[in-house]
């Protein structure tokens, strides 16, 4: 290292600072500079890839850690007291001794921090030393280095299944089309593969990439933490700029999948990588209880000051009353005595030191410990464990467990939260014709049957044939049916076993085609193949198959992807592999039996479809090549003339970012339109005829929440036309419809649109999710002009998103409607039950959804958010004026309604349905109060078509206006705002990635877990912690007051009659563990009771167990007990020869007994642990004190504890005093508990009574209780699977016209209460 002037160093440092701070960075390849000293490196200013997440260094640990720790107020309080104790005029104890508590606390915290930091250091080192491949110019190849050696400007090669070491700009991949798949589960938890492509036009894609030929300068933005956004361009030597975005960036921490190798240019390294910038520490929230606790601590401070003032004043008066200087007044070292007033002033501070324990500093430490324990028990609850995803409940926020017990409002997302978010294709409407897919519905209905025998051996359990679809199966082998039945169950298990593969379960993927539609297609196919015209039916399915971003991965790729885990899975669970083998034949076989059976029934019931059915049957039979195993038949037109034998459609597995897309692709597949492959510039689809069409993908206009649609622009391989397929939400599509499509059709576009809209409404009412599909033929000229705009937009570095979106909007006009689909999203298991329980628990449940009101209302009924007898208020208005008047009228009505004495006894409740637009108006500042007032009176509120921002706004408004505890639960990125706005955010780790989970405080995997989480754990955590805190306050006051009372007999001189060490030990060892155990383990009511009687949850709402009154009552009790504990020994030892510390010993012992027995009164359930800890504390007290007073002869002046306890324990008076005092001290509390439990037992006490009964009477009484209180019993009886159109009997399928009327069958009527805004929902 050559010497450089300090000035140069400073200049260099400043330049580096500037380079890092600049908005744009210029990065060049390191290769030309390889081997040069650091000062010559072009990218020397940017940090290397070594990461350091440790907080401290070895040398600076102590100062830094102390600095950190003194940020806490409590520690400063301690230190202040210790310093105060060093001031000679005010000290109460030996100054050195006063340092002990603060030292103990600082040391323990420092040890914990050091251990955590060491762990971080270890993981850092492990990570930094992970091998990776960096290109070296010297060796002309990629050489193995460590992660920490990677620098900005290097070329790094990543092979399949390897983790990307830094943020890489993808330059080359093994894939000829320049794509690379990555899995980002390490970053955001999403397990689906994401596509990344090389920067186009930058590197000539040789088969072998030559890093040395890279001579462009990469200009990229300053590092930021947005995982989904990146901007950069590369400037070639000829000044040509090539733009790139996030689609070319491999993020550190991702895993490369399905790609042999990839080479990238390091743009950000180490701490500047996006994944590192996203690493925020754990979240810190302050719970409601803690906020109240702080108020009580404040009261304690006031109490302390009052007591100190009394002490100071008392000392002053006492001194004043002395006639001359008595021999017991000790002057200071020069023989000078302070004046009474000055002494009184000093005494104030002495008293603060003496009574410092009144402020429960150790309470904070204890609370932290208790919460750790509570979280341990929550995460270990087997009921909150989900088998399917192998996930427990995760507690991300460590300090708000008790808030779970105080929730008053729940805001829930719908999709994925209440529902499975496993989409099942249900119906479609093409060109205005509805295809209800009855058979599919039946199949799903059967599947929805509750699984009674979970662990059924799938071959030979005799089972009654399922009535619903084996009614007409006289000729089918009953064994067959059973076999299918078993295999379904099995396959369901198998499917979920590999849950990291999205939608692999046949349950979701299999679609049984509608016969009529199949027929229509085959007709269209035959006609179009001859006439070269494209039939709208074919177009519809092409759109279904093409217009998405589904990634096709082969079964082989799949295996590669999971290779690490494969062997363990095989060894662990051979049954799974077996069932995997079995499932496919089984499920396919089932389809065949279906087809074989169907015609029979048609004949017997014989309606209009008979002929069609007959028409339709022959192809089935002929096409089916007698292949019983049905190995390759997903479509009826099995690819017998398959030209790619390696890729039979069974090997395909689709990975979609959104479950809808996968469902649609599977639906298309069922009709023979199989998506075979997708690269970034082509899509291969196999047509029902077996022909493979390769569409050139010109552009993909990706989905965004503003447009609410996505499009794909392809070039048709046959017609060579540019075709734009768009799919999207109906309201986003309907207004873009242009001229009628396909003039060869007789019906006008208007009719198609109207019919489709009608179908859409019907779908929505069934609770289906709807999507519209459109097509547009783009002329060459138009495409050219658009392409120019598009390129410009893509290259832009400012406002790129808006520009890109504008171009998308430009193209998506004049669409022609093809049809619509209805996808079902089934309710999760026991959602209605959970919602009913939550409502009985006094929690208002709001559902906020982006769906249409019709869909939402239907789901609302299905999950029993709305009840039939409810009064449903529907609010939907266009402008603010009407909104205001509606709001006022409704409010008036509701008020009158609730005040009407006739309605007092009725169970009818009010529910509110409001749509997004009205919600915006209602939440405007002038209407807000009225809206909240109205919502407060409603039992449940359903908000439809709300945006993520509105969701969080609703939560905020309710939370702030009503001052209630709110909980938001959601699963998707759109719920993140809401989750963060609520007091408690709960993320459901579902199908839509992990954003919600990342933002949440608790993560669960099923909605039904909410029931136990809130009703049981919430209740427990809250009551435990609240009781523990109150007890802690009591304990400190009761103990410290002994010292205070003594001041009245020692001239307010600040004497402590208890040895200081024993005082420290008293708080540190003898009485610290029992309350912590109490806070972690006390079970006031069993989980069974809490679940059985949700009403018990109401105890925690509002103030609950932790009220100011409880606080003050326990304070009074503490005062009483300390009075008793002091004055009984005082009177007993009055005018005797007892000395100071011998007098203190029984006091200390009595306090210990009183405090522990007080806790024993509060403990509701005694387990072995309780006994051990309580008795252990007593034994520990005696052992430690005896040892201390046996060994300490001259130590710790002035107390000299030598032989004090021993002599006391030899005195019977000691025991007599202890027993009497303890009894007298605890008598009032004991009596209070007894009287309350006997005369007016709280519901909790009653529940405790029930708990002791035998199970059968208990359940009976629980039922009785529930029926009496909430009328829940009546409603409970109807609790069954949610009403769903799938439950229609098979018979009426064929009786009714396939269009609309049967769909409309379960139409609902809204009770709207005032005339002036009576509007049925579907108009």
């Amino acid at each position, binding site marked *: 290292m050559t010497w450089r002037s300090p000035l140069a160093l400073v200049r260099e440092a400043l330049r580096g600072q500037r380079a890092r701070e600049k908005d744009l960075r210029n990065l060049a390849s390191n290769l030309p500079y390889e081997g040069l000293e650091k000062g010559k490196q072009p990218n020397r200013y940017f940090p290397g890839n070594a990461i350091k997440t440790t907080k401290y260094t070895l040398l600076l640990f102590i100062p830094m850690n102390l600095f950190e720790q003194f940020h806490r107020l409590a520690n400063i309080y301690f230190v202040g007291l210790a310093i105060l104790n060093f001031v000679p005029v005010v000290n109460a104890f030996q100054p050195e001794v006063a340092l002990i508590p603060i030292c103990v606390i600082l040391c323990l915290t420092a040890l914990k921090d050091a251990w955590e930091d060491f762990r971080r250091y270890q993981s850092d080192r492990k*990570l930094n030393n992970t091998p990776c491949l960096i290109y070296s110019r010297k060796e002309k190849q990629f050489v193995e280095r460590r992660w920490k050696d990677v620098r900005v400007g290097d070329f790094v090669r990543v092979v399949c299944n390897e*983790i990307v070491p830094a943020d890489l700009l993808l330059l080359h991949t093994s894939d000829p089309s320049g794509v690379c798949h990555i899995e980002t589960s*390490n970053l955001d*938890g999403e397990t689906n593969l994401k596509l990344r492509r090389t920067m186009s036009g930058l590197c000539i894609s040789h088969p072998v990439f030559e890093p040395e030929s890279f001579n462009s300068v990469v200009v990229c933005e300053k590092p930021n933490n947005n995982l989904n956004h990146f901007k950069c361009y590369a400037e070639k030597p000829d000044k040509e700029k090539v733009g790139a975005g996030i689609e070319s960036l491999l993020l550190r921490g991702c895993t490369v999948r399905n790609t042999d190798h990839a080479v990238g240019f390091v743009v950000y390294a180490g701490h500047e990588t996006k994944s590192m910038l996203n*690493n925020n*520490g754990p979240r810190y929230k302050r719970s409601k209880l803690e906020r109240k606790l702080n108020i009580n601590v404040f009261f304690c401070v006031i109490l302390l000051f009052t007591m100190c003032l009394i002490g100071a004043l008392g000392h002053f008066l006492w001194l004043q009353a*002395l006639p001359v200087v*008595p*021999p*017991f*007044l*000790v002057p*200071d*070292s020069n023989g000078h005595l302070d004046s009474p007033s000055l002494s009184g002033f000093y005494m104030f501070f*002495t008293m603060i030191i003496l009574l410092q324990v009144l402020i429960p500093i150790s309470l904070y430490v204890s609370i932290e410990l208790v919460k750790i324990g509570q979280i341990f*028990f929550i995460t*270990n*609850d*087997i009921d909150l464990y989900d*088998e399917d995803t*192998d*996930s*427990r409940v995760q507690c991300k926020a460590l300090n708000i467990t008790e808030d779970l017990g105080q929730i008053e409002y729940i805001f829930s997302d719908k999709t994925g939260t209440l529902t499975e978010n496993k989409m099942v294709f249900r119906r479609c409407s093409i060109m205005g014709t509805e295809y209800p897919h009855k058979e599919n519905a039946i199949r799903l209905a059967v599947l929805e049957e509750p699984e009674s025998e979970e662990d059924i051996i799938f071959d030979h359990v005799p089972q009654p044939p399922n009535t619903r679809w084996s009614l007409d199966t006289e000729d089918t082998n009953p064994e067959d049916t059973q076999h299918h039945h078993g295999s379904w169950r099995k396959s369901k298990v198998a499917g979920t076993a590999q*849950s990291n593969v999205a939608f692999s379960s046949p349950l979701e993927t299999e679609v049984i085609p509608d016969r009529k539609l199949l027929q229509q297609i085959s007709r269209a196919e035959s006609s179009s193949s001859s006439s070269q015209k494209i039939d709208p039916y074919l177009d519809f399915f092409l759109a279904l198959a093409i217009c998405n971003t589904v990634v096709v991965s082969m079964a082989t790729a799949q295996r590669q992807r*999971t290779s*690490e*885990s494969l062997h*363990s*899975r095989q060894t662990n669970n051979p049954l799974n592999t077996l069932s995997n083998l079995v499932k496919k034949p089984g499920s396919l076989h089932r389809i065949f039996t279906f087809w074989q059976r169907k015609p029979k029934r048609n004949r017997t019931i014989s309606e209009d479809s008979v002929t069609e059915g007959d028409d339709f049957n022959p192809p089935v039979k002929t096409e089916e090549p007698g292949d019983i195993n049905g190995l390759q038949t997903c479509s009826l037109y099995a690819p017998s003339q398959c030209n790619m034998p390696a890729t039979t459609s069974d090997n395909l597995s689709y990975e979609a970012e959104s479950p809808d897309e996968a469902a649609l692709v599977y639906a298309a597949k069922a009709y023979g339109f199989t998506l075979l492959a997708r690269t970034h510039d082509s899509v291969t689809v196999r047509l029902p005829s077996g022909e493979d069409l390769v569409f050139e993908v010109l552009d993909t206009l990706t989905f965004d929440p503003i447009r609410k649609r996505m499009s794909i622009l392809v070039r048709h391989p046959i017609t060579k036309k540019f075709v734009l397929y768009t799919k999207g939400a109906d309201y986003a599509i309907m207004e873009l419809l242009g001229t009628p499509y396909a003039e060869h059709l007789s019906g006008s576009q208007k009719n198609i649109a109207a019919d489709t809209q009608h179908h859409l409404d019907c779908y929505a009412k069934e609770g289906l999710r709807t999507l519209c599909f459109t097509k547009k033929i783009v002329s060459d000229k138009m495409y050219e002009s658009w392409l120019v705009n598009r390129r410009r937009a893509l290259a832009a570095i400012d406002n790129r998103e808006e520009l890109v979106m504008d171009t998308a909007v430009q193209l998506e006009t004049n669409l022609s409607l093809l049809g619509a689909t209805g996808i079902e999203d089934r309710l999760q298991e026991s959602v209605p039950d959970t919602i009913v329980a939550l409502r009985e628990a006094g929690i208002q449940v709001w559902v906020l959804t982006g769906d249409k009101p019709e869909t939402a209302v239907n789901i609302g009924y299905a999950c029993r958010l709305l009840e039939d007898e409810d009064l449903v208020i529907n609010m939907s208005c266009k402008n603010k004026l009407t909104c205001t008047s509606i709001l006022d009228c409704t409010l008036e009505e509701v008020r009158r309604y609730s005040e009407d004495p006739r309605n007092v006894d009725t169970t009818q409740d009010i529910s509110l349905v409001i749509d997004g637009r009205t919600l915006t108006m209602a939440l405007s500042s002038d209407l807000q109060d009225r809206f909240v007032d109205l919502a407060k009176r409603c039992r449940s509120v359903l908000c439809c078509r709300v945006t993520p921002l509105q969701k969080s706004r609703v939560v905020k408004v309710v939370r702030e206006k009503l001052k209630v505890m709110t909980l938001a639960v959601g699963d998707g990125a759109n719920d993140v705002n809401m989750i963060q706005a609520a007091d408690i955010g709960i993320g459901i780790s579902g199908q839509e990635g*992990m954003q919600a989970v990342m933002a949440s405080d608790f993560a669960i995997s099923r909605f039904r877990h909410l029931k136990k989480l809130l009703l049981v754990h919430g209740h427990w955590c809250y009551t435990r912690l609240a009781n523990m805190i109150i007890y802690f306050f009591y304990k400190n006051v009761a103990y410290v007051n002994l010292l205070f009372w003594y001041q009245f*007999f*020692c*001239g307010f*001189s600040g004497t402590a009659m208890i040895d200081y060490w024993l005082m420290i030990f008293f708080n540190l060892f003898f009485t610290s563990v029992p309350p912590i155990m109490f806070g972690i383990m006390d*079970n006031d009511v069993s989980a069974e009771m809490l679940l059985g009687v949700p009403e018990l949850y109401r105890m925690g709402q509002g103030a609950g167990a932790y009220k100011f009154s409880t606080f003050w009552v326990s304070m009074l009790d503490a005062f009483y007990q300390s009075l008793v504990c002091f004055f009984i020994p*005082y009177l*007993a030892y009055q005018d*005797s*020869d*007892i000395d*100071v510390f011998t*007098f203190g010993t029984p006091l200390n012992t009595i306090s210990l007994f009183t405090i522990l027995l007080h806790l024993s009164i509060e403990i509701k359930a*005694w387990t072995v642990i*309780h006994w051990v800890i309580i008795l252990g504390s007593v034994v520990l007290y005696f052992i430690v004190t005896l040892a201390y007073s046996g060994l300490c002869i*001259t130590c710790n*002046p*002035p107390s000299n504890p030598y*032989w004090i306890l021993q*002599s006391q324990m030899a*005195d*019977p008076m000691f025991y*007599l005093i202890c027993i*009497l005092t303890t*009894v007298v001290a605890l*008598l009032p509390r004991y009596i209070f508990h007894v009287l309350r*439990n*006997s005369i007016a*037992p709280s519901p909790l006490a009653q529940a405790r009574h*029930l708990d002791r009964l035998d199970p059968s009477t208990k359940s009976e009484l629980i039922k009785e*209780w529930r029926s009496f209180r909430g009328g829940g019993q009546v409603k409970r009886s109807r609790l069954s699977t949610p009403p769903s159109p799938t439950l229609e009997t098979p018979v009426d399928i064929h009786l009714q016209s396939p269009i609309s009327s049967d769909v409309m069958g379960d139409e609902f009527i809204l009770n709207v209460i005032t005339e002036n805004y009576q509007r049925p929902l579907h108009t």
Partner: protein
Amino acid sequence: MMASSYNAKDEDGHITVSGPGGGGTLRGKKPENTAFKQQRLPAWQPILTAGTVLPAFFIIGLIFIPIGIGLYVTSNNIKEFEIDYTGVDMSSPCFNCSQNFSWNSTRPCTCTVPFYLEQPYESNVFMYYGLSNFYQNHRRYVKSRDDSQLNGNVDSLKEPSKECEPYAKHDGKPIAPCGAIANSMFNDTLELFYNDPNGTRVQIPLTNTGIAWWTDKHVKFRNPGGDSSNITASFQGTSKPVNWRKPVYELDTAADNNGFINEDFIVWMRTAALPTFRKLYRIINKTSSMVPTLPRGNYTLEVVYNYPVRSFEGRKRMILSTISWMGGKNPFLGIAYITVGSVCFFLGVVLLIIHHKCGNRSNSADISN
């Protein structure tokens, strides 16, 4: 392999997502179904209701009342005689002595206080001196001593602890024993005479050993140098406390009761817990089983009045007391036990009534109420 190495970061809580290897560790996260982890440990769940606690109250009552009676009787059997010799009243024999007081007065003032014992004292009689309003428990006072000096530490003898200030050194010489407690040691001399009905005055022998705690005398308090044979030499170079008349090595003539192990001194050094206290002064041992230790009759207390109490408006008393297993006379505990026992018994009756009235309700039938 590498995937798992990256997942090592999970432990930081930064990235908490089950990695792609999730399939491999199938069911790996399933919590153990143990009674402890599922919070189903067998538990005793007492419910405090009138019915369940009834017996406890009666039992407490039944146990406490006899104990209380026993205590009360024992306390009443203790004979105690107390006489105030402060000399506040003009009529008091010690009035003169109390008026002209000074710590340093060389001429001792004596006064004689006559008294009459109405009952004979049978067993050993303990003679106490009592002080009132003397705050021996004042914080600064309690601290003002050097325990290691008293324990015979030679270094501390030469260099007393700072706690002893301002009674640590006098004229540059260390004070032994240092500190305010020692300095203010009670220095009245009390002597007891029995006025025989036949006119003779018999001095009652007072034992001045065995009045301190055994551990204090033998463990905590030690003369410097260890051996007490040449005690004067051990205290060479030290100064007596300013208020004392004579140095510490002249407290008694007996070698085993001199210096720091003088029992009067040890008793004084055990600072009293409350401002009104008594300290054991002498023991009058029972001589024979035939005659009472102190027969009924007239007595004279001769006081060498040294100790000034007017500065704190204190009182000095001499107490004669017999001792029982429960210490001195104090009826409080007995009364307290009887009271608490009766209250518990009464509460038991009240609860019995409550139990009969609400008992049925508090059970299962109450739920729908």
